[in-house]
């Protein structure tokens, strides 16, 4: 049996202890992983007809995953929305503001998945829930889980998800117009993982 170390979720300095929420007994067979660099969570949206990419600089991911123990696998990812970075100060300010992420009200977004499917060929699917902007809705991740080249003990978890920003109340009013900002937002992630023993 492995016990998840008491890793403190420090993204916001909020000291959320995710580990306490993990059912250590049921998860006995799935490997616990820690994310190390390189790791990224990026997104693509279309603004005025042209796609641009942004990223979240601060996030924490607790990954418990083994391809042969999907039942016991589990993802918990916390993202600091205030750490959004699109390389353009004006846009970042708007994204942090009340009409988008409204980080003054809640700056944490959380993705949680406990249900996984093996699609063959190292491809998997997670059916999880995204809590964002005060709403909690199902979001599907498609991802691959492959050994890192040159690092025998490390793996790379890489995938993407898509959702409609309006479902989460992001960019309402004038901003809701699809012509100026796409409704569909793509999220991409790539996490290098090392075992926690």
């Amino acid at each position: 049996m492995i016990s998840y170390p008491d890793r403190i979720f420090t993204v916001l300095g909020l000291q959320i202890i995710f580990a306490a929420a993990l059912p250590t007994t049921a998860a006995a067979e799935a490997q616990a992983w820690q994310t190390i660099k390189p790791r990224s969570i990026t997104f693509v949206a279309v603004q005025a007809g042209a796609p641009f990419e942004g990223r979240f600089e601060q996030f924490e991911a607790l990954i418990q995953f083994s391809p042969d123990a999907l039942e016991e696998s589990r993802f918990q990812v916390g993202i600091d929305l205030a750490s959004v970075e699109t390389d353009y100060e004006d846009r970042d300010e708007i994204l942090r503001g009340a009409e988008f992420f409204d980080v003054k009200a809640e700056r944490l977004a959380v993705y949680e998945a406990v249900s996984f499917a093996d699609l063959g060929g190292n491809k998997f699917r997670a059916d999880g829930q995204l809590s964002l902007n005060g709403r909690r809705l199902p979001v599907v991740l498609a991802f691959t889980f492959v050994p890192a080249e040159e690092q025998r003990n490390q793996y790379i978890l890489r995938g993407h998800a898509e959702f409609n920003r309006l479902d989460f109340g992001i960019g309402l009013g004038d901003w809701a117009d699809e012509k100026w900002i796409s409704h569909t937002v793509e999220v991409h992630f790539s996490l290098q993982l090392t075992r926690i023993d």
Partner: protein
Amino acid sequence: MSQDCQELIAIRKLKNTAERYGIVSQAFHWLIVVLIIVQYQMGRIAEDLPLGFDKLVLMSRHKSLGMTILGLALLRLLWRLANKSPGSPPGLHRALQGLGRTTHVALYGLLLALPITGWLASSYANSPVSWWGWFTVPDLVMPDKENFERLSELHQLLTRFLIVVVTLHAAAALVHHFYFKDDVLRRMLPGWPGLRK
């Protein structure tokens, strides 16, 4: 007059002669004058708007129109290479001839440099330009906040320079017309009967 002959005259009117600008050069000139006025106003108004939806919309149109002007300016230069401009009016002082030529070179330079600095600024700000929502113009450079500031200042500086040069240029046209009483303004105006004979 025979059909053939009329067609020949119509074609000849398109091209410049030693005495006057043809219809194509005139159309380029006045179309670009109108677009530049709109473009300049849009830029100033957008710049003064508070961060928000209206600014995004106006700035997007500014970028699309600016790229349109860049395309027209390139076509115009091609046309000019294939089509000599009428020379200076007879008897014009050599210094004034030189001043006129320098002003025209500066105007062509601005017609290219303004859109290109705007395009560079947009690329540096990770805000790819869409041409009226039809297609995305490729980025010229990787995002970089400092260079965005530099380029956007340069873009702004060039707009001030544009005002100075255009004022000089338009004043010269009026001086030619009302003071020197030559054909310089008239030969850039449509409908002048110089070619009909």
